[in-house]
């Protein structure tokens, strides 16, 4: 199995996906959660551009990636704003203190 560039990069995409999801599963800090989410979005960007490369229409891949990037930036901004507010109101960034669904 020759490791062509797209294949290597696809394995890299899968690896990043795993790392990003692992980060979201493990971390208890809200801001760390946003960072893990950013890694996941970079995965998506890379996958889109790789797909654009493979089908030969790189500019289509780029346009879609730009859209995702814009949306992701907005998500990051709002996520950080929420984290700041949570810190102000509850005094902690720990995820387990956010839940009020107690028995």
């Amino acid at each position: 199995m020759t490791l062509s560039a797209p294949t290597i990069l696809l394995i890299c995409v899968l690896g990043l996906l795993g790392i990003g999801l692992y980060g979201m599963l493990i971390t208890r800090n809200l801001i760390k959660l946003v960072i893990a989410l950013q890694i996941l979005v970079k995965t998506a960007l890379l996958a889109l551009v790789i797909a654009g490369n493979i089908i030969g229409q790189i500019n289509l891949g780029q346009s879609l990636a730009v859209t995702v990037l814009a949306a992701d930036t907005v998500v990051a901004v709002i996520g950080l704003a929420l984290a700041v507010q949570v810190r102000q109101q509850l005094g902690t960034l720990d995820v387990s203190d956010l839940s009020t669904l107690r028995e």
Partner: protein
Amino acid sequence: MLYMGLAVAMLFCAAMAIRAKHLLTSVLWLAGVSALLSLIFYLLGAKQIAVIELSVGAGLITVLMVFAISVVGDQPIEARSIIPLPVAIVLIAAAFIMLLILTIPAPAPIPGGEVTSFAEVLWQDRGLDVLVQVLLIFSGVLGVLGVLAHRIQLTRRSAGQSAIKEAGK
């Protein structure tokens, strides 16, 4: 070769970003991921998105995060994770293996015919996307204002109260 090296470096940076104890260190590793990613984009031929990713990912997001961390404080949370470690590892490994089976090996690149320029594709074929992005950014701004409004009100009220106290003296 080059791609292999860049891929390994990117994975390493991402792993360090997750594992770092302090939030600032994490953000710096994330900027590293962004930089390497933009390099890969350039090598794939996507020049414009490389520039955008560099400025947004390594620039804007990093600055935002640093700003947020400065407001919030950088105490690391020492506690163990809520989800048991083996469960997380099994889940991730299962997803990784299944995706591996489904997607590898990657199809061979199709030699592209005439390539329409990026600007044309973005503004004409994907014009609706751009419109949606504008709406997204607009609603994002409103959202942030809404989320932070209470804080703005608090600071204004405390400023008002201290002003009243000053006047009362």
